[in-house]
């Protein structure tokens, strides 16, 4: 029996989405063609766009299809950044340290190739980026910049050293893809909007787990929002950037001028249709699924604590017992109903992953992988964990097909894996240096 607890990586496609995908692929016609067959394809595409827009609380014109979450994030960050340099130089980007690599690598590329200055927003011990932390980053980055006494910049900006006016944009993960912590995007949007700074929200891991009302978010200052189909039971290879009519971005991809000239290229009707079926299903079942998955998650957390009392929950604790980092948190914080994330002291995450895999349970070390080469989690590092704590981490993520039996199977396999992984310890590194 194989138990899949890695829904955050990708979740099984909804059978109805597979059927819709296969059927739509039999339809001939480029949606940009003028003849009847093109019109038929166009109708399928636009109906899909309307349905997806409905799941996002957005207008259809605001939904720009991309090849996935990564492209949507790239388009938002680079496109907004470039656009914001047109009149005056606004080199700064506000970015939390625990973002997905699609964000981190994009902003670091902008720093290297387009003179962007990165102001890092600190996460709290639970993995949240708060509105206050954004303001601190805005001021601190500004001070650091002033101390460098960059006269050329002062001249170029033409506005002196106003921290807001020199800032191109802010970006934030709504729900952290590793630890599942939910950040207060409405508050962040409000404080940035009050200073004229647009905010991009990476909603790839939140989509399908939190209700999204983009109109309301836009009113409090969210300027763009990225989602991906395969996290909600749709196909890999399609995602969307929600972009209000009033927000202008410089395109990454030039060509036939499709999708408001923002994203050229022949549009993938079948993928959009399949995406729409999955998105509508997830939006309609979200309320009930959230309750069901939260129950499974809490059982999972309680089960882990029962069999491995030393295990430390990373991120907010939905049950109430102390979780590491909680002391830094004055108010209640939330995590995705689908996510549990633990550090198993004295264990290497990849040892646990291997042993659980052998036992038929698929989990994740929760960290970014480049061709399968693991790195210590930058999210846990950004939350203030030591590298050793960052290494002994496992992400357990639930989804539509998860059952209580999955949780039970994991809890049954965990003690043996933990004992054996503890024995292997940190053979692959020098622990004397911590």
């Amino acid at each position, binding site marked *: 029996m194989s138990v899949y607890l890695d829904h955050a990586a990708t979740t099984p496609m909804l059978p109805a989405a597979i059927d819709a995908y296969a059927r739509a692929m039999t339809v001939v016609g480029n949606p940009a063609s003028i003849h009847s067959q093109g019109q038929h394809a166009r109708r399928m595409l636009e109906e899909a766009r309307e349905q997806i827009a409905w799941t996002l609380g957005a207008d259809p014109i605001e939904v720009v299809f991309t090849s996935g979450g990564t492209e949507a994030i790239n388009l938002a960050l680079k496109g907004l950044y470039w656009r914001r340099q047109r009149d005056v130089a606004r080199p700064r980007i506000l970015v939390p340290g625990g973002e997905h690599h699609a964000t981190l690598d994009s902003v670091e590329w902008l720093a290297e190739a387009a003179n962007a200055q990165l102001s890092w927003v600190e996460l709290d011990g639970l993995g949240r980026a708060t509105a206050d932390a954004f303001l601190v980053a805005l001021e601190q980055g500004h001070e650091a910049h002033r101390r460098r006494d960059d006269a050329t910049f002062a001249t170029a900006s033409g506005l002196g050293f106003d921290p807001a006016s020199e800032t191109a944009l802010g970006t934030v993960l709504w729900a952290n893809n590793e630890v599942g912590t939910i950040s207060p995007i409405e508050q962040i949007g409000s404080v940035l909007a009050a200073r004229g700074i647009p905010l991009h929200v990476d909603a790839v891991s939140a989509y399908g787990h939190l209700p999204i009302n983009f109109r309301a978010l836009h009113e409090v200052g969210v300027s763009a929002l990225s989602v991906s189909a395969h996290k909600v039971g749709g196909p890999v290879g399609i995602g969307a950037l929600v972009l209000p009519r009033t927000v202008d971005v410089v395109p990454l991809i030039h060509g036939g001028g499709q999708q408001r000239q923002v994203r050229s290229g022949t549009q993938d009707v079948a993928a959009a249709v399949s995406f729409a079926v999955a998105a509508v299903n997830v939006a309609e079942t979200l309320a009930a699924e959230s309750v069901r998955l939260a129950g499974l998650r809490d059982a999972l957390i309680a089960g882990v604590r029962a069999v491995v009392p030393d295990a430390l929950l990373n991120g907010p604790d939905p049950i109430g017992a102390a979780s590491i980092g909680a002391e830094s948190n004055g108010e209640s914080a939330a995590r995705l109903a689908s996510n549990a994330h633990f550090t198993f002291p004295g264990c*290497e995450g*990849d*040892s646990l*992953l*291997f*042993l659980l*895999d*052998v036992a038929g349970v698929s989990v994740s070390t929760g960290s970014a992988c*480049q*061709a*399968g*080469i*693991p*790195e210590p989690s930058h999210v846990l590092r950004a939350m203030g964990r030591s590298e050793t704590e960052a290494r002994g981490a496992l992400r357990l993520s639930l989804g539509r097909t998860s059952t209580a039996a999955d949780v039970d199977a994991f809890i049954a396999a965990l003690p043996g894996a933990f004992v*054996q*992984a503890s*024995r*292997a*310890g940190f*053979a*692959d*590194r*020098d622990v004397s240096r911590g």
Partner: protein
Amino acid sequence: MAAMSGGVDSAVAAARAVEAGHDVVGVHLALSRMPGTVRTGARGCCTIEDSMDARRAADIIGIPFYVWDFSERFKLDVVDDFKAEYAAGRTPNPCMRCNERIKFAALLEKALDLGFDGLVTGHYATVTKDADGNHELHRAAAWAKDQSYVLGVLTAQQLAHAIFPLGATPSKAEVRAEAAARGFSVASKPDSHDICFIPDGDTRGWLKDAIGATPGDIVDSDGTKLGEHEGALAFTVGQRRGINVGIPAADGRRRFVLDIRPVTNTVVVGPKEALAITEMGGSKFSWAGQPPAHPETAFDCEVQIRAHADPVPAVCVLAVCDGEPELVITPTDPIIGLSTGQTAVVYVGTRVLGQMTIDRTVSAVPVAVQA
């Protein structure tokens, strides 16, 4: 567990281990936090392309495959050691260090702890058992590919868990043909050479970047300054080329690097006969399996001082130096061009008896020790 580098040898070794009835899992070691994305040139074994090659071979064999991060241990135990040894004027062998401390230590320990019984690698060497069931390390059937030298650091316990399925293979060509027949994309992949963490093969340039280079004097064996060098690390004992001195030798013969003295940053040069080493000693030694019954009684053996050097007849004895045990090897004929830091592997016939890191040498024509 099969260690899979992404090369042809380890892929075939893993496949043979499966066919021998073992339940095999492939593991690729990530040895760098910042791996290159694709192979550049024929060298190197640590890029993401190599890990993908290993993964595809595992797919074809039909075994699970994982990448394990050993970059921290590798940096500490192999790369930093390599720099420190060079900085001390010695010439280390990083592949042996990797076998000693990573593959057959950290990796093997982790594998055993995780429930594996042994470690399969693509080394060309043979493990046998003597009449009492003790494991012995022997040369591979194909002497041209024999890698028993770099495995000389293995101990009895490590040998008990080492599986070398390529040891009996008559030639590399046969391994390549087998890889092609099995459908491995790496069948014709070039062999990796030299040092994996120096992908362009420019060890001198790499050392210069890693340690820095300070100009100093080139002197002859009585301490007379003959010229200047741009960094002592650029030289290795026995080297002939690149000794840029204005004054020709009195006898007009070529000069060779005899010694590198990091403390004074000097390079000592002299005639070839001064390179002849008549004795070498080392206090860091190990036995590959059962030690000889009476090592303190001098015994005949062969000694090999480089991976691709020929073995030469010698006499070996376990002596005492400054109260510490020391292995002393006396070659029958002097060995030319030998540096401290190198590993001397002791053979009896095809069997690897043990090894030592050379701490000191005795030259046929002693070089004055001049500060």
